[in-house]
C-alpha cells in the first residue's frame, strides 16, 4: 500500500508541476515556488497545495483551474487547496526560474525579499531607486534606473536601461 501511495503523489506532482503562469508563460508553478505541497489529506484524498503570489493576483484563479484540470486527469479524487501562510516570497523562485525570467527579458528579483530585511517602510520611502544594481536583461548593463515600482502585473516593476535605452520589466522582490 505505501508504495502505491507514494507513486500516486509523485505522479500527481509531475502532472501539475508544469502548469505555466498565464502572465509569464515561461515560468511553471514549480519555478515560481507557488506549488507548495502535494500530500495526502486526513480523509485519504490527495491534495495539491498552492499559495498565491500577491493577494489580488488574477492569475491565481486561472492557475488553480488549470491545476485542478490536470490533477483530475490523473487523480479524479484530487483536491486543490490554497494556503496563505507562510506568505509567498520571491526568494522561493528557483534558480531555473530566475534563468528563464532573464532569458525571457524580465530581470529576476534581486537579493533577499524587501520585507523583513529593510524593516519599516518609512526608511525606503524617501528614495527613488534602490542601491542593488538590477542588470538589463537585454544588454547586461548594470546602469539601469527605476521608472515605476508598479508594472504590467502586480509582481513586476518597470525599469529602463541607460546603456541600450530599452525599457524592461523587473520581477520585484516581495
Amino acid at each position, binding site marked *: 500500500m505505501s508504495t502505491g501511495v507514494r507513486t500516486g503523489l509523485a505522479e500527481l506532482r509531475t502532472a501539475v508541476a508544469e502548469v505555466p503562469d498565464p502572465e509569464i508563460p515561461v515560468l511553471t508553478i514549480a519555478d515560481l515556488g507557488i506549488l507548495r505541497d502535494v500530500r495526502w489529506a486526513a480523509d485519504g484524498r490527495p491534495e495539491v497545495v498552492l499559495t498565491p503570489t500577491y493577494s489580488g493576483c488574477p492569475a491565481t484563479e486561472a492557475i488553480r483551474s488549470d491545476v485542478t484540470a490536470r490533477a483530475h486527469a490523473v487523480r479524479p479524487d484530487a483536491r486543490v487547496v490554497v494556503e496563505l501562510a507562510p506568505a509567498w516570497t520571491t526568494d522561493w523562485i528557483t534558480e531555473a526560474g530566475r534563468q528563464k525570467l532573464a532569458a525571457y527579458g524580465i530581470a529576476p528579483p534581486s537579493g533577499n525579499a524587501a520585507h523583513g530585511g529593510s524593516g519599516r517602510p*518609512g526608511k525606503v*520611502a524617501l528614495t527613488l531607486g534602490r542601491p542593488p544594481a538590477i542588470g538589463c536583461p537585454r544588454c547586461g548593463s548594470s546602469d539601469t534606473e527605476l521608472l515605476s515600482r508598479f508594472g504590467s502585473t502586480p509582481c513586476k516593476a518597470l525599469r529602463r536601461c541607460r546603456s541600450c535605452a530599452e525599457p524592461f520589466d523587473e520581477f520585484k522582490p516581495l
Partner: protein
Amino acid sequence: MTAVVAPSADVAEYAIRLGDDALILSQRLIEWSAHSHEIEEDVALANIALDLLGQARSLLSYGGSYSGKSEDDLAFGREERRFTNVQLVELDNGDFAVTMVRQLLFSAYQYELYRTLESSVDGQLAAIAGKAVKEVAYHVEHAGGWVLRLGDGTELSHQRAQAALESVWPFSYELFGDDELSGRIADRGVGPLPSLLRDGWLGTVQPLLAEATLTIPDDGWRPGGGRSGLHTQGFGYLLAELQHLHRSHPGATW
C-alpha cells in the same frame, strides 16, 4: 481550503471592518484609471487597487463565513449603512495630491495594523496580514515618494499638497478610534487596540510630512462614524457604481 476555522461573531465583524476599508479604497482608486497624468501612474494606482481588492476578498470571505455569506454577498448586497469602513477611504479622490496624501495616511496605518496582526491568535487573520503587509510596504513607498515630491516641489504643488493634507488629516483620527468591539478583539489577542497603532504610524508619517515641508493641521475637527455605518455624502454614489451590475443581474456569473 484547509483547516480554516469559522470565526466567532466578533472576529467576523472585525474582519469585515478591515475588508470594507480595503474594498472601498480599492473602488475609489480605480476611478483614476485612464485619468492619471502619466501611464505609469495609471498602472501604479490600478496595481495598488488590485492589492487592496485581494486583501478585501480574503477578509470579507473570512468574515462572511460566520454567517454563510460570500464575499460577493457582502460587497454587492449590503446597503450603505451596513458598511463599516472608515470615512477616510470613501472620500472623493479630489486632485492627485488628495489621493496621494490619503494613500500615505491609510497605507502607513495598514502597515502598522498588518504588522501587529501577523502575530494574531487567529490563524487566518495572521495569514492574510502576513501576505498583505509586504504589499502595503510598496504602497507606503509609492505614496510617500509622491507626497515628498509634491510637498517639496513647486509653489503650486506645495500649496495643493498642503490643502490636501488639511482636508484629509482630520479623517485619520477615525483609524485609531477604539470601541467595544475593538476592545474585545484586543482582549483576546486577535487584533491591536487601534489607538495603540497611532505612535508607530506617526513615526512613519510625521518625518515624511516634515521633509515634504508640509504642516499638520490642528483644528480639533475629528469626523467619524464610519465604523457604525455613518458615511459621507459621496459614499452612496460610490456604492451605486460598485453594485449596480450585480443588482441589475442578481446571481449572474461568468
